């Protein structure tokens, strides 16, 4: 650990715990608390990654959680960020996106052919001739991308929690800590988050070789940590701002969705690199990065360095470097006037030579560009932003610290809808108009001096108190005074380029100039053409310089250029975190356990799981379905229909309500009778069908299809409100179980358990009565959907299993057999009953399915009636018919949705088709040309392979109707 220095107060590493890991096949040690980058840098490694496009060697840049040139794989995970991920014992790391290792990367040749790859080069070539493009595309795709995904990576289930608080403070720097304390002292419930391992923000690293920041930090942290009203979350970032103050906080173990009454964004600023040739060499880093290495990880950033600056901060960096034992051979200040403050005196007193009005013209690479060997310094004209290399000198160094300015970490503010303005005194975008309940403090708000930031935190905290209805003082914050923290144009032109603006995407100054030449001269187009800011760091270190460069190109002030839109996420967020546990809720009928034991295969129908069929050993699914259906035809079967929607309509206007809601007639319906009910939407399309039973003069009981039940009930409720009829509408879907016993022996089975007679005269087809089955009060309906003789037993859910078991016992002698939805579909087909949603689609009108009998146009009104009057004037384009294939059909079996053709014209399609053992035929439903609807008509179905199958229109039902015992 050659570059590790003595213990720093408040350092983030634990020197008691040593960890072993390897990088690119070489063994290293680290301390607990080290990031991958800090450990490798401490060990003297300089090349931590290769850039995305040119495969240039890269080291640390910001150490601020967005150094995306340093991405690792440990063989399990990939794209692990060096400055974010902590070293774990035994890690075996390699840099991603190299061929042959990070040092020998064979793709480094791309850097040497970079003149062939001008901005937007991939738009300009590879597409002619067309036939070669797939070759080039393959090459380009292979070259692109970062890490290799591990297909065996386990699915990770992260927890998600939701919390509510009065105040969410994002960023635990001096402003955020102060604001949180103000809020909590006044009794607010405060949540305080910070993305770093420890709270403190710049107080943890920006110390200027002194102890003031450290003592302020321990004072604030001491108060925050012991405060009952503050819940502090470190190593957790606010990933985005969503409507109504919803902010997901992402930590290692999951996401906390925070809903806050007020939010203070105190996220600080990102340091921005000045742009000069070879500013990307390993060893060239941001000043704040050098400070982070020193104070958080006790790592010496380099041995002999220079500081290039354009603000006050560079001098603080120099003092920190000196304190860490770095030889600072020069401080290059791009400003003509330099820094006129005690800081300058301090730096000079400590032996640092300050060159004002100068810039780093270029960094000099060491062998293989693996590091810095020196820097060429020359004068810089701030008025013209031109360097004068004729007047230059060279300094040897192994590192350069850069401090030229900042960009606000304002993504969350933008997402919340904040209007920003460009502030000339700080040369920074600052909030101009904040949305309701959103506040800001600290550097992101343009407050730079420590005192000023503390004040600004206090101001914001008090503003929140007033916003939440408490009385609180107005705090005045002094505006920024003195020289600007950011240089308005820290860009040094160089004829040989390689002066990088965006390190993610390897974008140089000339790329912007050339993009503008080609017409991409507004910020959004420039972003899209150059891809600036589109890399994994989303432009945290590059967008601001891009805006400045474009302003220069167009001769416009920065404010006129504007910014690109900030989108979530603030940091890239793992899919596993966002997905959480992924719940898949289902509704189950009371008999679900019984079906499971009986070997049911379940299928999803709407929100429900229903038994599709019951497995039998050594028999195929198709065979089982035929058997189940056959048992209904020949004796008796039983099916659980508990998932059907069941509604009750009560009171005097119930019939009137149903007359309006459904297409048929219900006013004339007799008590004890059921009627088919067709539901249309306002455009006359068939939406659902069901059965309406009249239990009493003023009580109706309705069953509707499972998958539509929720939507049907919803519409029922809405129309009820609009019509303002005096009825009671009750959803009893879950309250009742439903058992259907069907087949010639159904009466014998149900009759054994029924309190009342089931004779035709007592309960005719289509009748309903309230009776008892197996001692339980039920509603018993004589139905005919799947079988000529069948009973639906609507039984209170709690007693459904009891009744089901009793029926199974009673039916044992008849060989009663449960059947599932698959057999049910076949049985209804045999009976000639269409299924809405299966034999209809989103445009089907009643005339197309021959449902004229179910609509009463003579009623004063029903939903869809007015549209039907219009539709009725137009020719019907297709009609649903029953069909059969020839006896003993042995050709290619058509499938549902094979087309019905006349010559070369599509006339319709098959909607249902199946072989039925009962009729020993292939039967089905199809839409055909309206002229082909008469029984005996033939039509043509085109199969998958293109073969034509002739079908014959027949009259339903397809099976002989059994009389029943």
């Amino acid at each position, binding site marked *: 650990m050659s570059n590790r220095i003595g213990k720093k107060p408040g350092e983030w590493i634990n020197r008691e715990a040593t960890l072993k890991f390897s990088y690119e096949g070489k063994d290293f040690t680290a301390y607990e608390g080290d990031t991958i980058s800090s450990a490798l840098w401490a060990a003297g490694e300089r090349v931590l990654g290769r850039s995305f496009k040119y495969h240039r060697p890269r080291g640390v840049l910001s150490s601020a959680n967005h150094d995306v040139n340093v991405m690792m794989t440990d063989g399990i995970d*990939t794209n692990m960020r060096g400055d974010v991920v902590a070293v774990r014992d035994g890690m075996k790391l390699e840099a991603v996106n190299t061929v042959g290792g990070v040092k020998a990367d064979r793709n480094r040749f791309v850097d040497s052919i970079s003149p062939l790859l*001008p901005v937007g080069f991939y*738009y300009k070539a*590879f597409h002619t001739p067309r036939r070669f493009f797939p070759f080039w595309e393959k090459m380009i795709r292979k070259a692109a991308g*970062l890490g290799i995904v591990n297909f065996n990576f386990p699915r990770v289930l992260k927890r998600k929690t939701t919390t509510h608080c009065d105040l969410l403070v994002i960023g635990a720097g001096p402003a955020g800590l102060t604001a949180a304390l103000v809020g909590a002292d006044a009794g607010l419930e405060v949540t305080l988050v910070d993305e770093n391992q420890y709270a403190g923000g710049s107080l943890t690293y920006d110390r200027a070789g002194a102890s003031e920041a450290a003592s302020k930090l321990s004072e604030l942290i001491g108060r925050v940590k012991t405060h009952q009203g503050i819940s502090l979350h470190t190593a957790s970032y606010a990933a985005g701002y*969503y409507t109504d103050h919803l902010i997901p906080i992402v930590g290692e173990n999951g996401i906390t969705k925070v809903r806050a009454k007020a939010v203070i964004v105190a996220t600080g600023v990102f340091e921005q690199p000045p742009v000069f040739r070879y500013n990307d060499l390993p060893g060239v880093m941001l000043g704040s990065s050098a400070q982070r290495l020193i104070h958080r990880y006790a790592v010496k950033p380099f041995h002999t360095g220079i500081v290039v600056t354009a603000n006050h901060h560079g001098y603080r960096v120099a003092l920190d470097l000196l304190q860490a034992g770095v030889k600072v051979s020069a401080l290059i200040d791009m400003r003509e006037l330099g820094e006129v403050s005690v800081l300058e005196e301090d730096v000079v007193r400590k032996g640092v030579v300050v060159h004002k009005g100068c810039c780093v013209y270029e960094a000099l690479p060491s062998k293989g560009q693996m590091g810095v060997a020196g820097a060429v310094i020359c004068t810089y004209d701030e008025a013209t932003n031109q360097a004068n290399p004729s007047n230059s000198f060279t300094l040897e160094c192994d590192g350069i610290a850069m401090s030229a300015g900042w960009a606000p970490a304002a993504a969350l503010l933008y997402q919340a809808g904040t209007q920003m303005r460009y502030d000339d005194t700080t040369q920074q975008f600052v909030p101009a108009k904040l949305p309701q309940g959103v506040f800001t403090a600290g550097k992101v708000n343009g407050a730079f001096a420590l005192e000023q930031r503390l004040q600004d935190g206090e101001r914001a905290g008090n503003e929140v108190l007033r916003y939440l209805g408490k009385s609180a003082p107005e705090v005045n914050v002094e505006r920024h005074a003195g020289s600007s923290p950011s240089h308005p144009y820290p860009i040094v032109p160089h004829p040989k380029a390689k002066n990088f603006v965006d390190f993610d995407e390897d974008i140089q100054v000339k790329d912007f100039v050339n993009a503008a030449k080609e017409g991409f001269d*507004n910020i959004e187009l420039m972003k899209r053409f150059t891809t600036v800011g589109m890399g994994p760091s989303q432009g945290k270190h590059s967008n601001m310089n891009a805006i400045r460069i474009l302003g220069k190109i167009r001769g416009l002030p920065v404010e006129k250029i504007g910014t690109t839109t900030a989108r979530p996420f603030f940091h*890239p967020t793992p899919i596993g975190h966002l997905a959480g546990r*992924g719940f898949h809720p289902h509704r189950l009928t009371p008999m679900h356990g019984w079906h499971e034991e009986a070997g049911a295969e379940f299928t999803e129908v709407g929100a429900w799981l229903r038994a599709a069929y019951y497995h039998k050993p050594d028999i195929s699914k198709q065979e089982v379905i035929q058997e189940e259906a056959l048992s209904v035809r020949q004796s008796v079967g039983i099916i659980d229909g508990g998932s059907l929607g069941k509604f009750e309509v009560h009171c005097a206007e119930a019939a009137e309500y149903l007359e309006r809601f459904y297409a048929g007639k219900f006013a004339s319906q007799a008590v004890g009778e059921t009627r088919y009910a067709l539901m249309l939407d306002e455009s006359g399309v068939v939406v659902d069908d069901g059965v309406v039973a009249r239990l009493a003069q003023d009580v109706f009981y309705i069953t509707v299809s499972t998958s539509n039940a929720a939507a049907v009930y919803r519409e029922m409720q809405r129309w009820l409100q609009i019509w303002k009829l005096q009825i009671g509408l009750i959803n009893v879907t879950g309250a009742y179980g439903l058992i259907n016993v069907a087949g010639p022996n159904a009466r014998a089975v149900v009759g054994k358990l029924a309190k009342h007679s089931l004779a035709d005269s007592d309960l005719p087809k289509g009748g309903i009565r309230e009776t008892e089955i197996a001692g339980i009060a039920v509603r018993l309906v004589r139905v005919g959907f799947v079988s000529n003789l069948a009973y639906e037993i609507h039984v209170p859910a709690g007693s459904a299993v009891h009744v089901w078991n009793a029926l199974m016992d009673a039916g044992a002698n008849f060989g009663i057999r449960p059947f599932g939805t698959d057999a049910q579909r076949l049985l209804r087909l045999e009976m000639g009953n269409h299924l809405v949603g299966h034999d209809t689609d989103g445009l089907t009108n009643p005339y197309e399915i021959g449902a004229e009998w179910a609509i009463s146009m003579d009623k004063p009104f029903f939903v869809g009636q007015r549209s039907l009057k219009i539709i009725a004037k137009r020719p019907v384009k297709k009609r649903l018919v029953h069909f059969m294939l020839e006896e003993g059909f042995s050709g290619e079996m058509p499938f549902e949705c094979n087309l019905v053709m006349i010559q070369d014209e599509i006339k319709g399609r098959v909607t249902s088709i199946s072989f039925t053992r009962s009729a020993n035929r292939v039967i089905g439903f199809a839409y055909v040309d309206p002229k082909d609807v008469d029984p005996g008509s033939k039509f043509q179905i085109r199969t998958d392979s293109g073969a034509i199958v002739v079908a014959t229109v027949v009259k339903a039902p397809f099976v002989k109707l059994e009389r029943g015992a």
Partner: protein
Amino acid sequence: MPLRLLKFAFSKNHPAPRFFRALEQPKKSYDVVIIGGGGHGLAAAYYLAKDHGITNVAVLERGYIGGGNTGRNTTIVRSNYLTPEGVNFYDASVKIYEGLSEELDLNLFYSNRGHFTLAHTESAMRTMRWRAEVNKHVGVESRVVGPDEIAKACPQLDLSCSGHAPILGALYHAPGSIARHDGVAWGYARGADRQGAEIFQNTEVTGIDVQSGKVAGVHTSRGYIATKKVLSAVAGFTPRVTKMVDLDTPIVIHPLQACVTEPMKPWLNSILVSGSLHVYVSQSSRGELVMGSSLDPYEVHSTRSSLDFVEGLTSHMLDMFPFLSNVKIVRQWAGMADMTPDFAPIMGKTPVEGFYLDAGWGTWGFKATPISGKTMAETIANDRAPEMIHSFRLSRFEDYELTGEKGAASVGH
């Protein structure tokens, strides 16, 4: 390396001209004014010039070109629709796309990947067959495939979808492709500009001057422009523009969101869509997974993002690809989709003479960019819509002749 890049290496000045002129002030009048500088509007300008010799055309863009849904969509191009009219129309678009990089001399990265619409239910399988049969009938390569073929094309896919929604099969559509969306707008812009059309960015239309039922001009943030023909090609802004001419349409605006991961080495070649899981995904040439889901459930005229969207989408992505747990989402965004009741566009003439509508593109606008530009140019030039877009006419709603695309979208699952 292609030779055409050499000039960049050996030239001191960047040897590439502007894509389009930087124009500030429109003329007093034009033969045609196109509202909307997205792919559709620019393509219409391009084909007006190329096919019909009409070059006295202004394209007015409120923001920057391609900045609306052209630059926000997930770039899938396909023609596996349900109705013969729809399939024909989108197939014509695919055919133009296939040669478009050459025609515009701009590499649009039109990348033929093959497109699978996954079916997790019997009912979805039926719809797949319906589409396949209609596609085959029209001569488009689509077919129903089983899980084996899906697994062959995408071995990483968990066919059981973590046990929640086992894949029964898919509609495979061979021509399915992705492209670089920005390039399509830029290429058409350059092509239109070179033929004489004038493109004005940051130019907002504030009103349309209609006199005696006929278009007379447009009011803009850069002054009044006289014209007898106006094309509205503004996607999510359509209701605002139709309001200017008092035209009622069925269009409502719902946000459509998307997101993208950080880049990774190529592994996903196919384009996958799952209706049941509300996921569509492809891997871009940069290596990012580009993903989308269903529309937001309610009307909003903004491009804000929501957390629900990305939570739901990622959950379903993990059902399909459990190993993506630690792959990171970099960015999410949204566009405003102009939805129609039958999931088909509204194109052609309107009751206002000289006001042409290219709208209702919902979630399927990008793939139709070339053919919509071509057919709208023809409509404007002849003041008569070609047969190909007859079924997309605005009056179909009054006629109760909604397109059949609604059929498939509403079949119960």
